[in-house]
């Protein structure tokens, strides 16, 4: 057995870091913190009970310094979290952490950062100072600053962060829909690195954060109102990539396309959240610095996604999709026709189609072929559906979501010698849709509306990648429209 293999197999890291042990220790630590605070408040220092509790805390805190030199300990108003992992209260036991909760609340603390070199006596001193400030009955607003100053003066290394107080003033405006659309899209892309970090650190993924973005996207695509952001969000989903965020953009686009296709199939809201979340994570294992997908990501992707915080169906769908989405096509978008139809899950099949579409139309740095033009990619999907690579209904769903000229498609205006870029979903020939007029250098000229039959695809063999300035101008046009 090779050394590497041996290391992989023999390593007992996962046994030591198992959730359960960690959960136990975190709970014990919280109990010990609470008990020591209470003892200090009741008896002051130098009492037997205090000594006993100090010793107990000293014992429990060691565990967390075994691998790290510091850790964060936060109270979020409901739970304590240690390095972002929730300390679970034990069912059936009525142990209250009230003393500790009050300590956080009364001093306006959000997080306490404990350092390995601090030592137990410093923790006791930290607590005593905090309690002294609480007792002094100062205004709540001033306590944190006072506490921080006292810690600094005493040279105590334990750090504290204050609760966010920015919500206190009336300084907020509600975003309009188009602003929210872009902010959501951007958040989805930028959050990706945070999710990747959680995976690397073997920490739970804050799925709720992804879900909020997905839910916002669903609202924007299918709220049915006159200022629906469907076209806007579909144009966003045609963005090739934010700088250095190739994979994150791909995931975000696939998520949006999956939701849009799901809407066309009449899938209900809860399943739209599931499909969006699953699509958003399906390629999570591909490194961001990757110059293109590699097939191996399926195995590893399944592995990391199957960790599951809880038994979340979206994550299971994501894991299944991650594991199986390349069974019928390669990264180069070549079909691998199966002998008989293979189905992961119905939602997984829908994600596959959207993944293929974004994959095929994307300018991947490492790919050796030209990307397909958007209508061409749709054609190809239908062909591959005939080869049983995809379920035909899912391809139709994507087509229905994108229309005859999917948003982001470069077109020419018939009879006008003018280039345009589709900014709408052309689902019917009876309604005009929006398109950005481009000059010969693909610079943004303005917005016009056209019937679909007034537009024509660019000749076969030619393909454009839009300049960033043009993309920005096109996106900003949605904001102007809302403002008007």
């Amino acid at each position, binding site marked *: 057995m090779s050394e590497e293999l041996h290391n992989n197999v023999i390593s007992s890291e996962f046994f030591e870091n198992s959730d*359960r042990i960690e959960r136990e220790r975190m709970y014990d630590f919280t109990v010990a913190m609470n008990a020591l605070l209470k003892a200090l408040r009741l008896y002051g220092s130098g009492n037997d009970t205090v000594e006993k509790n100090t010793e107990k805390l000293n014992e429990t805190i060691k565990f967390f310094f075994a691998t790290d030199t510091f850790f964060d300990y936060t109270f979020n108003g409901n739970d304590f979290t240690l390095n972002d992992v929730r300390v679970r209260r034990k069912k059936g036991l009525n142990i209250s952490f009230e003393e500790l909760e009050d300590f956080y609340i009364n001093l306006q603390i959000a997080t306490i950062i404990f350092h390995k070199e601090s030592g137990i006596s410093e923790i006791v001193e930290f607590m005593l100072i905090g309690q002294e400030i609480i007792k002094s009955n100062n205004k709540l607003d001033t306590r944190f600053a006072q506490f921080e100053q006292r810690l600094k003066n005493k040279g105590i290394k334990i750090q504290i962060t204050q609760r966010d107080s920015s919500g206190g003033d009336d300084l907020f405006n509600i975003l309009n829909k188009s*602003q929210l659309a872009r902010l959501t899209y951007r958040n989805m892309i930028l959050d990706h690195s945070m999710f990747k970090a959680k995976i690397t650190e073997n920490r739970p993924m804050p799925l709720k954060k992804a879900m909020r973005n997905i839910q916002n996207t669903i609202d924007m695509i299918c709220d049915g109102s006159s200022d629906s952001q469907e076209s806007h969000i579909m144009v966003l989903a045609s963005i090739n990539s934010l700088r250095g965020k190739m994979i994150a953009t791909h995931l975000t686009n696939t998520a949006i396309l999956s939701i849009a296709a799901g809407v066309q199939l009449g899938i209900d809201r809860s399943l739209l959240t599931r499909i969006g979340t699953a699509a958003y994570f399906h390629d999570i294992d591909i490194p961001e610095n990757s110059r293109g997908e590699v097939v191996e990501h399926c195995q590893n992707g*399944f592995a990391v996604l199957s960790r599951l915080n809880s038994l979340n169906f979206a994550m299971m769908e994501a894991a299944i999709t991650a594991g199986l989405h390349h069974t019928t096509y390669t990264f180069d978008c070549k079909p691998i026709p199966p002998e008989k139809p293979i189905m992961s899950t119905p939602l997984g099949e829908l994600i596959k189609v959207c993944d293929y579409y974004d994959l095929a139309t994307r300018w991947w740095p*490492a790919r050796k072929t030209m990307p397909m033009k958007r209508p061409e990619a749709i054609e190809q999907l239908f062909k591959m559906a005939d080869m049983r690579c995809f379920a035909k209904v899912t391809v139709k769903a994507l087509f229905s979501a994108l229309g005859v000229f999917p948003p982001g498609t470069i077109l020419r205006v018939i009879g006008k010698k003018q280039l345009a870029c589709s900014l709408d979903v052309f689902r019917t020939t009876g309604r005009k849709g929006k398109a950005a007029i481009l000059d010969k250098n693909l610079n943004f000229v303005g917005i016009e509306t056209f019937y679909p039959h007034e537009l024509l695809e660019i000749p076969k063999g030619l393909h454009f990648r839009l300049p960033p300035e043009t993309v920005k101008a096109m996106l900003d046009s949605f904001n102007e429209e809302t403002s008007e």
Partner: protein
Amino acid sequence: MVKASEKKREIFDFFKDNADKLFNDNELVKSTKELVSLFGKVIRGYRLYPRTNPAFSRFADQFKVKLDEILTDIPSISLRISTKGFMFGSHVLETDDKDREVVFFLYNDGLREIYFQKGTQKDEIWQLFDILAQCTLFANDDYDLSTLLWDHNFTNIGYITEDELIKQNLSLSNDSDNFSPFLVEELSYGPGLDGIGEVDRDEGKEGAGNSPMDMANSPKFIAAEFDKYSELMLKEEGQIDFNERKELLNQRLSNYIVGKMEMFKFDEALKRNSDSFVVSRFLKELSARLMNSQGTKAGKELLDTAVSLWEKLLLFGSVSGAILFIQTLKTIAEQLQNTQPEYSKKIRDTFSDLENEEFLNDFFFTVEDIPAEEIAVIGKLFAMVPSKKMDFLLSKINGIESRETRIAVINSCAEYVPITDDLLALTHHSDWKVVRNALAMMKDKKDPRILPAIRATVSHPQKQARIEALALLMEFSVEEALPSLERAVFSSARDVRSPAIQKILELKDNTAIKPIINRLLQIHNLKKLESDEIDEIFQMIVSLRRYDLFDLLGQQLLTEDPDIRLKAIQAIHKATTMTHFSKFIIRAADINSLAKMKTDELQAFCKLLRPEIFDELFPAVTNTLSASGSLFNKSIPTAKEEFYKAIFYYRNDPQAKKFIEKSLSSGNKETVKIVNKIKDKYL
């Protein structure tokens, strides 16, 4: 109906613009404070009491009343959530200190404003409370208040999250028309303007745009070339007919757009592949990959997952999933037993939680929420728990409140948990419920060790344990059960002996039964029983038609104890015929015996004198005709009178008629007088 979420901006702006005015309405502010404090009560309450506590329903009622009160004058009420507390517009609502924690909880979950519209239903409030409970009790990384509120899509309750807000000064300083989170630099993906191709011609030629170098490093073309390419694009071949083109597009759209039937079919597919399908598909995939990826990075990752997954699965109610994983891990451990013994042992060690009482405790907290199909296999899981923990498991099973669930768990255990010495030993456990469960788990198994254990339990110091053992014993063969049953029949506890007696009386065609009943009906044994219990036994003999035991019952007519005699009379009276008891009735009908009976007994006994025994009776009671009472002892005439009354009842019976006539001609004045008196009365 317009959903609350769609009215967001309108409500947000209304409260922003009218906050000062509204804040001057003291009544409104007071009611709003009360509403806010109910929020606090509910959230704190969920930490202390179960969700089923009736207090929460009361809170919901109070909340609704308060809300209706507030919404009489304004169409909606909006509460801002800030770290300073609940706010009404820009004014902080001074509430209880305890509520600060609650506000922070809401704030931390990304909620910045929550509002209620006129028409908010109690059901909506109740669902909102349910969401609060879920986040308070089971908060995790998968959901928060905002995501759950979105899921519920309330008609009258809306909210604004942190994601939807932008700092006012930011939006003012930048012209809001130009608000864009994107910078051009961010949308750029490399130097230069790359990516024009001419794929069909000059394939592979440098600068054509389809070589890897072009795609990766940006092609070396210049603006002039760009013009050339875009000219190419715009070059139209011939005149294009709009109608033809429209026709073509229409055809394309009608061919490819999803139709109603396809939507229906997809919906059907989703229904067929429900949540449980997703779980099982996921678990199968994980299991298969786990087995096939040993030694790889992904394999280690999967193992890491699987090791903790079985616990997660259990705590989330997927018993079968957990079993699948434990079994998969065990298989891997076995496969590596020889090549990697240390590693194999470590995998096995991860099952140690199966004997961790705290973990099992946690699991039992969730048992009542587990679906029936998962409960049905719970025994498979418990079979994996070391047998030394069986007493703990059985005690926990007792703790399950729902009887149905408890029985389902025991039935599953009975199916899957093997009999071990530890389990057998539990038949001596001091808690009878543990004994009961242990017995229930063993009863259907064909194991020679079970019967001795049950027999021994019949002597358990706790009565209830004895009863349980007995009940079980009865399910075994008579031969197996009889010795214990006999012991139970003579038990000092009625709870034990009653079912034992009943069971024994139900055992027909068994010669071993009669000696037991005979012993039981001995006067000294009967006297140990409770009065109504004797009735029960006698009546059971009659109602179960135990003809073979009728003689033992008839014998009681001759006993010296008047109480027992009366009970026997009453029981025999219910028999369909007296034929089986004739021998004993006739003996008891002797005038001297009758004379000893008290009136009620005498009257009851005489009812046993029925035509079917007259044949034997009359020849045997001839002394009745001649017997006479003394001057001071009226017992014989009284007995005689009751006797004749009974016979006279059947006066149309030829035997009876003959006997009456014989009596009238007996020459005994007393007899003649009594018969005539009765005759006069009835004829």
